[in-house]
């Protein structure tokens, strides 16, 4: 290849590249767009809501990203995301953010289905998680060591669980640390002596499909979606969309849509509890 040939080739290549980028940039600017980041529990639900919203509003794009509640809060604060997804109520020190509840979720203690224990008091749960009770015999079960499954730092299920038991994470003596709900269910289903806690919706779904786990009542209230809805179940949490300022235009329209009756079937399909918005 002679010198001029290779130069021509390079020129054509660069031209194509620039044209392509120009075209991309135009397409990028043409549509209305929202970016959401945050909780991996909320992301699949909001993803489905976004899809329905897009079909009802052609030209609008809702990009749902994930990464965890803390990330959602950070991204919303620094403007990377228009809306954050948070799977708990906002804390008092997280001021300046606007939260909009789109669904409720309960957290249930789960055991393996073959475990003889059918109920644990709050104190017994505290003793198991802090390592004071280490054998199922002490709480009426078989003679076997308890495997304590805890959630990873930064998970909002962990925060909610600790808040309910009035414990600090450093007091917990876990044998296994897990991330997401299905992982917790798989861990307990695979170990007859494990105890863990996961989202009620996910646990109910898997238990109905024959996964060997059972949900324990808390404070005498059965862990069911119905009890989360009527507010009697003690360990439940709101799933929120958050914004850094009063939502405007597209963000406001999407949040209103996510809280409307039009999305209740989607919330139920993800095993969460829809909220009534007046």
């Amino acid at each position: 290849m002679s010198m001029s040939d290779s130069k021509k080739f390079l020129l054509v290549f660069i031209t194509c590249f620039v044209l392509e980028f120009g075209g991309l940039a135009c397409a990028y600017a043409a549509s209305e767009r929202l970016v959401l980041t945050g909780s991996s529990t909320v992301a699949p639900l909001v993803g489905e809501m976004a899809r329905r919203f897009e079909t009802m509003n052609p030209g609008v794009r809702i990009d749902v990203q994930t990464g965890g509640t803390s990330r959602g809060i950070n991204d919303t604060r620094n403007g990377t995301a228009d809306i954050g997804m948070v799977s708990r109520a906002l804390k008092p020190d997280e001021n300046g953010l606007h939260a909009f509840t789109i669904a409720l979720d309960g957290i249930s203690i789960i055991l393996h289905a073959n475990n003889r224990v059918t109920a644990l008091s709050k104190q017994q749960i505290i003793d198991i998680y802090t390592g004071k009770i280490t054998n199922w015999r002490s709480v009426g079960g078989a003679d076997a060591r308890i495997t304590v499954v805890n959630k990873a730092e930064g998970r909002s299920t962990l925060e909610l669980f600790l808040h309910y038991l009035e414990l600090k994470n450093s007091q917990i003596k876990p044998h296994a640390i897990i991330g997401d709900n299905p992982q917790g269910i798989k861990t307990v289903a695979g170990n007859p002596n494990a105890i863990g806690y996961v989202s009620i919706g996910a646990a109910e779904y898997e238990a109905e499909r024959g996964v060997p786990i059972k949900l324990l009542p808390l404070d005498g209230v059965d862990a069911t979606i119905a009890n989360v809805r009527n507010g009697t179940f003690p360990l439940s949490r709101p799933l929120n969309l958050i914004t850094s300022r009063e939502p405007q235009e597209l963000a406001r329209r999407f949040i209103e849509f996510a809280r409307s009756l039009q999305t209740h079937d989607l919330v139920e399909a993800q095993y969460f509890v829809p909220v009534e918005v007046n």
Partner: protein
Amino acid sequence: MHEVRNTHAWQILRDRGVQFLIYASVLLISAVFIWILVDLIRGGIAHLSWEFLIEPPRDTGRAGGIAPILVSTLLILLVAVLTAVPIAWTTAILLAEFVAVDNAFGKAVRFSLHVLAGVPSIVFGLFGNAFFSIYLGLGFSILSGGLTLACMLLPILTSTAEAGLRTVPNTYRTSASALGLTRTAALIHLILPAAAPVLAAGLLLGIGRALAETAALLFTSGYVERMPDSLLDSGRALALHIFDLSMNVPGGDTPAYASSLVLVSLLLCINILAMKFAHGLQRRKIMT
């Protein structure tokens, strides 16, 4: 006499033993692959269909297919390979052909590549998010995901290509210059084709790593499962989809199996094609 026969029998026995151990380890390695494949096929084949490949996902992936995810994955891969290969291979040519082995500059480049090769992928993900997505303003997009992957591929592609070029015997180079070929001509017509199978093997390693990547893409190319319109759209990679289905979606196991089966088949196809191509190139350029 009796003793000699005894030693002989012992030697035969020892050889048999070593032979057995070698076969056993070969079997063990194949068994791991076959076990994974059989497990994937058992879990996913029932869910796999033509519709699964051409439909978009519905109900967070529990129903529908993986078409947009396949397209995003291939686009990310394309961006990564097209960016990384020219840079990596030119670096390798420089290191192997134009710089002496004990040259300080060459050593520095090689050292930095080795360090880069050992960096965990989530670090690349955070770097990609900070640099491509936020600093360069590409946002969550296939482009920033692909460029992040390209950074990850650089060390693999460069080291394998350099090793491949170094295995080409020096007699090729001396014969070429004796025939009056310039270094560039020798490189294009002789040395690169001779090293092609190794280059292809390196490329395959890279593609395999890129296709399997989850952590680096979570914060760069993102989580959106829509069919991408352009490279600036966010697009979910197949490995990320599998991770999400098995970790975040209750009841997502079966589609996760089916998606994994697609991923593994894709890898196998790319492997076979690239090997064929590399051997063909070598034969056409050198053997005839």
